């Protein structure tokens, strides 16, 4: 049996505070399509980045072999020279250039010092025709649909004489018809001997096209199956088959009020208190005039409750929170009631004033002013509390900041340290602190523990419990099922912008949740 085209042996990759890959084994044979499956954060993207030379040789442990010989990619260029082309979720096409220019980007045919436009367009036309694509090579890429862009990327990769094509979620944005076209092309390439690594959350596609399936979980390669021996439930089982680590602090659930001691603050709020947030038949489009992305979402949130929202990448979780906060989308129908008042077409400013805050997923981009001190960031949303006749009461602000700084146990010399220099976990505490200082009734948390170490995670969980104990309602979005199951009273799984399933605590199981997220609510 010939050596595999590409082989990974005992790959281990660590980032500060987290092991992204541990001891991963993976091999790819010539002329096969090999699917990689795993939950968000299982290590798929990291593995690809190693194969593509984005994480260079030396930044990881273990070996890569190409054609049985050890390979040491120091850059993307090295990987490309070995015939490995990666097509990522974010398009690497330049919108303003033509299709032909994109295909030959950086290696345009030349005549002397000038670009040979005729030759370039002729060759591009031939390549496109080969793929059966009716695209004029002189069309600017921005005029193409997403599906066509994806195919142009494939054409570009193939013209670089790639032997290994890596596709990361290639169909996330495609219509069914475009998916069919793409899969046809991949089958054709396979017949010509090209090998392909195919990453997709859509198990239907995986089963339709892959020869073998490798499942990753928590950075480890769990198993490699021949597709003909596998079933959807089996793959899902391997994807989630892990014990829920005993790291979620015990909490009182507002949904079982009898368990509250008489002194518990939730009693004071009263279990029959108004629903702080009630969403009915909400549909939201990215902008006015486009078709809705979030479709017919209904739920209500009770005081002291944590309602979890799960779903795959792109299922609409972040968009839902951003919309409720007033920072995203155009509502096409539906109604949102915040503390029994209509909460429509609000701005973030109005949302905060009415007691609804959002802790964003991308804290560097959306949450913090990195060049400013911790205190500046903590009080940024709450300056009104310290304003007397137009003037800031700086000592009062300082004292309030200090209290929060201490209670959140932010690790920094003092509250004057710049936020940009803090670790991820401490930055997250600052973002949380900023939200809490506004005195909210409803707290929307989007991936509050992403990229922070275990200790900081635990502190975030304790903070969530403190919030619910005070009778605040929490909407928690997380990609990590164990976290979602450990912290939520109820979970709603989103699937492609709609509700894929709702589960009470007694019904929680990773299989059921993941199946609902994949639109297979009945499969598990």
């Amino acid at each position, binding site marked *: 049996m010939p050596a595999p085209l590409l082989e990974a042996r005992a790959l281990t990759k660590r980032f500060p505070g987290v092991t992204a890959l541990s001891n991963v084994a993976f091999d790819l044979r010539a002329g096969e399509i090999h699917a990689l499956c795993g939950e968000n954060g299982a290590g798929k993207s990291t593995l690809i980045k190693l194969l593509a030379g984005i994480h260079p040789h030396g930044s990881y442990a273990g070996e890569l072999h190409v054609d049985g010989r050890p390979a040491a990619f120091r850059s993307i260029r090295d990987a490309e020279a070995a015939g490995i082309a990666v097509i990522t979720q974010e398009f690497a096409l330049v919108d303003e250039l033509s299709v032909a220019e994109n295909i030959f980007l950086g290696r345009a045919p030349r005549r002397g010092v000038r670009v040979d436009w005729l030759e370039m367009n002729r060759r591009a036309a031939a390549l496109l025709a080969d793929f059966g694509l009716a695209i004029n090579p002189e069309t600017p890429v921005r005029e193409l649909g997403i599906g066509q862009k994806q195919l142009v990327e494939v054409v570009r990769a193939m013209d670089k004489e790639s032997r290994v094509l890596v596709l990361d979620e290639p169909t996330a944005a495609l219509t069914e018809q475009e998916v069919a076209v793409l899969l046809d092309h991949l089958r054709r390439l396979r017949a010509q001997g090209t090998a392909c690594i195919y990453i997709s959350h859509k198990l239907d596609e995986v089963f339709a096209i892959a020869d073998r399936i490798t499942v990753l979980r928590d950075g480890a390669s769990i198993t490699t199956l021949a597709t003909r021996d596998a079933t959807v439930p089996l793959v899902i089982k391997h994807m989630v088959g892990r014990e829920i680590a005993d790291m979620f602090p015990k909490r009182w659930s507002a949904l079982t009020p009898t368990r509250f001691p008489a002194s518990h603050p939730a009693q004071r709020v009263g279990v029959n208190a108004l629903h702080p947030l009630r969403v009915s038949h909400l549909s939201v489009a990215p902008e006015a005039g486009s078709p809705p992305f979030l479709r017919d979402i209904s739920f209500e949130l009770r005081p002291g409750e944590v309602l979890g929202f799960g779903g795959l990448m792109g299922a609409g979780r972040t968009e839902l929170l951003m919309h409720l*906060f007033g*920072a995203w989308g155009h509502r096409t129908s539906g109604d949102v009631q915040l503390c029994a008042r209509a909460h429509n077409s609000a*701005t*973030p*400013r109005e*949302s*905060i*004033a009415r007691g609804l805050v*959002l802790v*964003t997923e991308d804290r560097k*981009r*959306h*949450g*913090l*002013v*990195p*060049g*400013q001190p911790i205190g*500046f960031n903590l009080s*940024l*949303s709450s*300056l*009104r509390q310290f*304003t007397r006749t*137009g*003037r*800031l*009461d*700086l*000592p*009062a602000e*300082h*004292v309030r900041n200090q209290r929060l700084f201490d209670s959140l146990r932010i690790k920094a010399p003092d509250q004057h340290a710049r936020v940009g220099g803090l670790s991820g976990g401490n930055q997250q505490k600052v973002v949380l602190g*900023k939200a809490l200082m*506004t005195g909210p009734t409803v707290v929307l948390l989007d991936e509050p523990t992403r990229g922070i170490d275990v200790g900081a995670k635990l502190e975030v969980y304790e903070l969530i419990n403190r919030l619910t104990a005070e009778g605040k309602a929490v909407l928690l979005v997380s990609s990590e099922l164990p976290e979602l199951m450990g912290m939520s009273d109820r979970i709603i799984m989103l699937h492609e912008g709609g509700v894929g399933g709702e589960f009470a605590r007694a019904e929680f199981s990773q299989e059921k949740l993941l199946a609902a997220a994949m639109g297979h609510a009945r499969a598990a």
Partner: protein
Amino acid sequence: MNARLLKNLAMPIALAAIAAFFAVKEPAFLGPRNLTQLVVEFSITGTLALGMFLILLTGQIDLSVGSGVGLVGGIAAVLVFQQGWSAPAAMSAAFAVALVLWVLMGALIVRQRIPSFIITLGGLLIFKGLFWLVIQNSTVPVVRGDQENLYSRLTTYYLPAHFGLALAAAIAAVLAVLAWRSRAARAAHRLAVPPAGRAIAQWIATAAAIVGLAAVFNAFRGVPLSLLVLAGTAAAVYFLTQHTPFGRYLYAIGGNEEAAVLSGIAVNRVLVGAYVLMGVAVALTGFMTTAYSGASTTTVGDLMELDAIAACVIGGTALKGGRGTVWGVIFGALIMTALLNGMTLLAVSPEIKFIARGAVLTLAVWMDVKLGR
């Protein structure tokens, strides 16, 4: 730590070096007469730079201020000289025009999402054209006949000696009260209070500097009125940036606009507010500059936008927003003014003046990058 110390001392050192260089070449540079003139020029540049500072803090820019200075001064001059208005009425009318123009530009920038660079570049050209239309390409004096008025006295009035000293003493007293109240407030919140000895020493040094400065001015004609305009502007901008939510929001918007929106800041309103304040600074500067030239002519305000931006940048204000201090801007304006004034005193040719100003600006930014974090 050393780099930070060097950075904090860089501006005083640069200023001292410039002053020493010119004083050696021409001892009159540090004489009361020249210092007084320098301070009037400094007041003009500094007032405009303080307005620009508010705009730069948010990460925006305003290229139209030079033309605006000419236009506002020109309108007031025409109303006084040709229409026979009283100076306060003419200045109020011109002031209102400035506010309208800057509200308009601010609204265009935030509502239509046109980059401020483009809007204010358009403003630069349009205001210049309007300016020349208003004064009809001629020279319009700020006084009718030889009756002095508020407008003309803006840069030629000096406080009587005893009044200047009394004012200096009063300012020192106010500073003492403010410092004492701040200490009391901190103590009331059980915050650390710096040792009283150091605070008193600091106050004595500041008070001595203020009173001493007044005495130096008194050696010539007295404290110039224009310096009071600058001092008032600086105090207002300092209060605004350090003691109000509005000031915090300026820094937040410049530091991360997306985060500012999601933190519940009414970003558009704050930005328009910054442009309105820029309009106020333009009007004040327009009156002072025109008065300083004695008349409104087509060249009044030329390139002043660049001096204002340069003063801010030399003073450590980041062009991409979110960083800068009032003290830095004051020092930056002083450095720019001292340089120009000194070169004029030495009768340096205009060609070399341009080159020297450009070189200092470039050097300052380079040092800022080198010594920066």
